[in-house]
């Protein structure tokens, strides 16, 4: 029992101290709950509005993962086209590199202006965000086939361009890269979905944060923020686990 507690402490002391500091900060300054709610108030708000929060969280999660998967699919398909057509990859690479250093959030309002206000825009935003990293990771994965494997394929009469090589060799070679892309992108996809909801006022946790704040329901706003954080951590943990589980099968 004591050793379990000790284990929890060595692993989670940072988070525990953070929580304690929060409670301490609120009670010592005798802060009005309109400025900053206490941890209990936030947890109570979560429990009392469990149905409401669960619905909004589900909505955000679905749009974020939907956008992530769409971006992934699009990234893989375009990367496959670029792989088979060097001219296309030459044209797309500078753009992909440029877009990598783009502050994505600056473009969310632009996409909103183009696509309008609504959940579909949140989906588009997360898709666009996910597309380029997925494209870059997938393409470099396709191109990473070791020379010795290419030689082997040629020796059995399979050219290193074309469908059979892609299906049996290039595509599987790219799997670890795609797993990495997913792991890295998962929390970002959630962030961008929240940002879009926040800006557009589309239903979801992002909007809850915004509306509760303007209604001065700080406990609710913070509860949404906390829930979003927990979701994001869960997303990251899930994809890291997935990555770890399958990556080892790619080491010869």
């Amino acid at each position, binding site marked *: 029992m004591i050793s379990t507690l000790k284990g929890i*402490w*060595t*692993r*989670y*002391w*940072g*988070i525990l101290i*953070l929580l304690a500091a929060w409670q301490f*900060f609120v009670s010592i300054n005798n*802060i009005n709950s309109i*400025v*900053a709610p206490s941890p209990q108030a936030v947890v109570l708000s979560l429990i009392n509005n469990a149905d409401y929060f669960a619905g909004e969280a589900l909505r955000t999660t679905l749009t974020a993962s939907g956008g992530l998967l769409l971006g992934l699919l699009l990234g893989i398909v375009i990367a496959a086209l670029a792989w088979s057509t060097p001219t296309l990859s*030459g*044209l*797309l*690479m*500078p*753009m992909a590199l*440029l877009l*990598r*250093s*783009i*502050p*994505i*959030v*600056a*473009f969310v*309002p*632009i996409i*909103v*202006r*183009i*696509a309008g206000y609504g959940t579909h825009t949140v989906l588009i935003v997360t898709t666009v965000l996910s597309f380029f990293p997925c494209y870059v990771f997938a393409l470099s994965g396709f191109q990473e086939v070791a020379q010795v494997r290419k030689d082997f394929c040629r020796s059995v009469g399979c050219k290193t361009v074309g469908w059979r090589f892609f299906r049996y060799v290039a595509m599987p070679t790219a799997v670890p890269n795609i797993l990495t892309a997913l792991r890295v992108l998962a*929390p970002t996809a*959630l*962030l961008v979905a*929240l*940002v879009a909801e*926040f*800006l557009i006022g589309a239903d979801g946790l*992002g909007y809850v*944060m915004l509306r509760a*704040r303007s209604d001065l329901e*700080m406990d609710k*706003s*913070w509860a*949404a*923020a*906390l829930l*979003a*954080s927990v979701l*994001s*951590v869960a*997303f*990251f943990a899930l994809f890291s686990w997935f990555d770890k589980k399958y990556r080892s099968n790619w080491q010869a």
Partner: protein
Amino acid sequence: MTVAADLLKWLVGISTLMVFWEIAGRQAWLGGGLPPLSGVFAYAIEPRSTELLLRSAGITATNASYGFVIGSLIGTLIACSGQIWRPLKQGLDTLSTFVNAIPLIALGPLMIVTVGEQFTPMATAALAVFFAVFVATLGGFERVPNVHRDVTRAYGTAHWRALLLVQFPNALPSLIDGLKLGVSTAVLGAILGEWFGAPAGLGVLIVSSMQNFQINLLWSAAIIGTVMSAAAYFLLALLQARLLRRLGL
């Protein structure tokens, strides 16, 4: 030959994008949301808008730079403290994974209360940078060859001295990688932070122009943010190449 070919690819790629954009804007394929590139450019070089854009960009750049410096310092220090006092390490790892996973936007309310609306952009930028640098530094420490560790242990070197003389130099290339990634994150963090009631900056400009249908202003601001972030990235990449060559790595 290859440099020239790469340059050509870049030129062709970028000009294709620009031409495509111009046509799409003129034909209004995406409605009013995508103006022609020439229109955006003409708008941006009007003295009044240039002044506004530069002032906002300056504020965001300041916020991002402070955030970058603070975030990378804290990130490096915390990663080092885990090396000096081992028991801290695991808890630090969990904490920073958690902090990284927290969507920046969820921290808005917290930041406003703790550091105030004025300093929120700096704080969000610092947080964004912190994690990139922290993770990169930790990764660098992981890669210290065991032989080096054994040598310091065999000589009974003090922890902090071993850190300074052996671990830190080994982690440096990875740390610089983290800084490179962090610099574009800093711009992103600053813009996002400015949405929470900051008085001025690119972030403020972007949101207000979105709400007021000032499409040209919106695009100009977003492009300036991108150029800023890309320029900082390439500057650091250049610095990295120089430094690594100097260190013989």
